[in-house]
């Protein structure tokens, strides 16, 4: 009796195992099909990329760019005398307004003791005051 039950269990396990293996096999076939398809797509994409790279190389060719630049741009080749290094730059001029001050226009007015301000609002704390219009220095700043 016990032997018969064992037999039945074994047969059941066998059927389950067979079904499971079948499913795995089926899945793997589907996956393999997908893999092959993706491989084909990758190959096509890679070929397309190579084609586009070749095309880009052609369009990016210095000779072509130079011809276009000569025709359409006012640029000229740079001369060696046009280079400059950072340490050749002159010193930065002293700030009229302390950076970070809360009231740049007020500070400026105090400093210069110039004509009374006629502006309506303060636009941004970092911006220097529009002194050219008020203090009559328009000619110098142009």
């Amino acid at each position: 009796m016990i032997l018969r039950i064992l037999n039945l269990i074994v047969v059941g396990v066998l059927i389950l195992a067979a079904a499971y293996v079948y499913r795995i096999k089926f899945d793997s076939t589907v996956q393999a099909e997908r893999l092959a398809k993706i491989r084909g797509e990758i190959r096509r994409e890679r070929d397309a990329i190579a084609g586009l790279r070749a095309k880009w190389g052609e369009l990016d060719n210095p000779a072509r760019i130079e011809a276009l630049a000569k025709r359409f741009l006012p640029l000229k080749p740079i001369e060696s005398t046009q280079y400059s290094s950072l340490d050749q730059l002159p010193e930065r001029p002293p700030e009229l307004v302390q950076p970070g001050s809360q009231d740049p226009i007020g500070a400026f007015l105090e400093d210069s003791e110039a004509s009374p301000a006629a502006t309506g609002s303060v636009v941004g704390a970092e911006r220097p005051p529009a002194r050219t219009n008020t203090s009559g220095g328009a000619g110098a700043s142009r």
Partner: protein
Amino acid sequence: MIAFVRNAMKRPLPSWREIARGLFYGVATDRTAKARARVGLAILFFTVTYCVIALRLVMFAALPDNRIAHRGGSGDAMATARPDILDRNGEVLATDVRVPSLFAEPRRLIDADEAVELLTADLPDLDAPELRERLGSRRGFVWLKRDLTAEQQRQIYRQGLPGIGFLNENKRVYPNGPEVSHVIGHVNIDNQGIAGMEKWLDGNGLAALHMAGLATDRLQTPVQLAVDLRVQHALHDELAASHVKYKTLAAAGVVLDVRTGEIVAMVSEPDYDPNNPHQALDPTRINRLTTGVFEMGSTFKAFTFAMALDSGKVTLKSSFDAHGPMQVGRFQIHDFEPENRMLSVPECFTLSSNICAARTALSMGVEAHKAFLKKLGQLDRLRTELPESAEPIVPRHWGELNTITIAFGHGLSVAPLQAVMGVAALMNGGLLIPPTFLKRTQAEADALATRVIKPETSEMMRYLMRLNVEKGTARRAEIPGYYIGGKTGTADKVVNGHYSKNSVLTDFMAVIPADKPRYLLLIMLDDPKVLPETHGFKTSGWNAVPVGGAVVARIAPLLGIEPRMDLPSADHLMLVSARESR
């Protein structure tokens, strides 16, 4: 029990059957044991059978399905993929593109005439009678047209002709056209390299890969060259301009990294379009820098003076008699601009005195001269990655006269790239580094380098080169800020076995910058003509030198050389350090 009795009874008279049975079971075995053994045998047999079946099933399940794996690859023709060739910044110099090609299977065609009509409608450049003849044949397979555009393929595909199909083939494409032609070379219709670096690729294992049919995919790693496409373009452009301006037969140029031996640019005009390789068969389009040998003229004086200074017997303060002409046997040596006085070594160099160079070489002796040039690789064939190379033409009997003429660059023909390698060794501190077209690191270059002259000699040579630009024959190459040093050379061309009076070969070697050398530039013009602005001269200083200056002005920013203004003259900057280091 009965069997036992029977056995016991038969024991005195064993028959042959009993002996046979005894072999399997033993004579005294009873029947139950026999039966059990038979059952065991059967169990074993079935177990093995089922094991085999199970194993086979596992194998079927586990191994990949070949049918699926191969489905994607159909429609691709032969395995002839090549790796991409890139320049040193990763720009594409050569790449593979898949192009569809049209074929037909005439046996499967239903109506050949209809096919001809439809195909010629889509591809007007197909020859109709030839097409009809091909399709009318009973062959299994004929190519109709290679290299279709995508649009053409779509149109033909839409007609749905039976027996007409497409195969994808790899086609080599050179997007930069003629600019790098002599460096990369080209391939034939079957995608095999037949010149330049393409041929080198085949020689380095690619051909074997093709034979084995393995080179189907694009996964091969690209090959990176030392060439910089931008520098190459600038050099190409300037040489093409000089080709027109001075009406030269040919023009060539090289830019070499003196510290690593990398060839950053190499142009030989006239060149060809590798996309259209039959131009390459024209003998005027050879690569003059590696396949041609030339008498380099006065640039060889750099070797002469380097030898003298390196020996220690001659210093920068030594002087030589330059009264001319110098009589050697039947020959007379002239200077181009005779000075007829004693000249110091720097004067000899900057005035480019032939007599002075000849006397310097003679003072060293013939054997020493020969040995020095041998050491600098000027007497042996220079081999690079390029398959084409030319052997220098060395005089068979090297006597005093040969030493005299070779001292100023006549009588010994070398490949210009070879001379560039030698001069680079004089500039970079005295290390001879074989030039290469592949990218190379400083460490790799150091491993290959051999010391040929002392570092102090190299410093003195750089001083002479710089002095020559400041007040010598190479004045027209001065570009402020780049501290160019250079040596000019003008050689009479050999025409029909005699030196021609009318046509010359001019060259110019420039080192940038002269105090800390990084690049060596060679400009070589073949037969430049006299122009109004050259005042009747066609020596190097009037054509190759200004071209060299223009090239330096264009390439120095690309090579990352920063212009430095207000540098002192060579006398102050370099002579002092040369003295101090001595």
